[in-house]
């Protein structure tokens, strides 16, 4: 998959989607997130290993990264459907990007769509840890590339 849109453009798309949802009813946002969670491609069991596990206080996230043609591709899973929905948005924004694009990503959409609290410490659901982990992958690949060059 080649991303035509930039990270910022994809973020804006999501923000627009949520503006529309907010005009419906209070559950619409979550119904959308749940739908996205359910439609996230199933993570192969071979990736559900300890080193891919990001343990939250409540739910668990598995995150796997692949590096192809200078771009990082993510796949992930969680035992919470809502967390899975949030992950699928992160993947939509960050997967298929170069390390540099990823490192610079501000990810403002998370607070713009009112999901900031899901990143807060109190939620401890591994989502914040996942954002960090995705960025760590980007850093690691960048360092590796620099070393090679």
């Amino acid at each position, binding site marked *: 998959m080649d991303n035509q849109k930039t990270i910022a453009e994809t973020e804006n798309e999501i923000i627009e989607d949520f503006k529309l949802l907010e005009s419906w009813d*209070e559950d619409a946002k*979550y119904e959308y997130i*749940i739908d996205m969670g359910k439609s996230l491609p199933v993570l192969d069991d071979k990736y559900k290993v300890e080193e891919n596990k990001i343990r939250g206080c*409540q*739910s668990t996230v598995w995150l796997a990264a692949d590096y192809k043609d200078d771009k990082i591709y993510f796949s992930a899973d969680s*035992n*919470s*459907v*809502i*967390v899975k929905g949030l992950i699928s948005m992160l993947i939509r924004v960050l997967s298929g990007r170069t390390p540099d694009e990823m490192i610079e990503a501000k990810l403002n959409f998370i607070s713009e769509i009112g999901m900031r609290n899901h990143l807060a410490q109190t939620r401890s659901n591994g989502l914040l840890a996942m954002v960090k982990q995705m960025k760590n992958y980007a850093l690691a690949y960048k360092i590796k590339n620099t070393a090679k060059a």
Partner: protein
Amino acid sequence: MIQSAPIQKGLDIYAIRQQFPILNRTVKGKPLVYFDNAATSQKPQVVIDALVDYYSGYNANIHRGIHTLAEEATAAFEATRDTVKHFINAAEREEIIFTRGTTEGINLVAYTWGRQNINAGDEIIISTMEHHSNIVPWQILCEEKGAILKVIPINDAGELIMEAYLELLNAKTKLVSIVHVSNALGTVNPVKQIIDAAHKQGAIVLVDGAQSSVHLDIDVQDMDADFFAFSSHKLYGPTGVGALYGKRQLLESMPVFQGGGEMIKEVSFGKTIYADLPYKFEAGTPNIADTIAFKTAIDFINKLGKEKIRKHEDELLHYATAQLEQIPGLTIIGRAKEKVSLISFVMDNIHPQDIGILLDNRGIAVRTGHHCAQPLMDRYSIPGTTRASFAVYNTKEEIDELITGLHKVIKMMA
């Protein structure tokens, strides 16, 4: 005064609700339904006022000052000790040590009595349903001393298997540290029986009263507990203060916990003489404001009457249990015969965290997760539960909101 007819000739719950300002707020545009009382209860206006009154009227450091403010603050602070003494029916006021809460109370015993009395090969008994606060301090102690931690198993209903407990007890047992009421299951444990059996083996018993003190009548002399620890914030009082009860002869024989001001009689560089009970265990300037308001919270409970509170909470428990049982795919975890007003449950194919998030979106505060009792969750092979815990100000109408919310969750997740 025009008043709607009370539901029962007991408490006027709607009048009680008026005393809790937080219950007027909305969450996500909905009236707050607060069902996380086992984590911490909300505070009545009188408790909030007590804090403000102290800071605006007689804030001073206690015990040492000779001026009026210091005397007033000291009197109010020490009045809480008397109130706590009566609340749990301790024999003497000196047996009440103020702590930061239940956790600190348990740690105090582990670090003082434990270090002095536990040796290699000794055994400490806890149970499967302990909060991490009543597991970790003993693990630390056992590791340090080469002692052994034994665990009382539970049955599927969430009750201690007493025969197994009696088998665990032996001459090597030095301490039994047991939760009075489980925070995750609501089970009320037969502490009197547990203590009696331990004493026959020469072991002492610490009772974790974090959950029981707000719901049950506590009589430490009748149960013959050696230690009883509880927190203010779970009984309508402020956070950051709690009490540890200990029998006088035990407290006197124990080494000090922390060193500093307040806990000394005389200090020279050669030798320090420690203060008498209870100050021996209260180093440094204590949490004066919260300790003063702790009394106000107990007075608030006493004024309503624990028996009446319990009757109301039992009604809520039975009503909620009956309603929850009708929800398809829902399983209540913890079906003990003796329970306080909290219900843990799991739902087929729905993660507790998702339930918590979706209920919060409807203004309903429940707790989800492992409730700091991971070994207990392992016992049931579940990652966690959703827990609704009720207080005196909760109503059946609020439970109806929860039930409606859960039906909606099922619909959304389907």
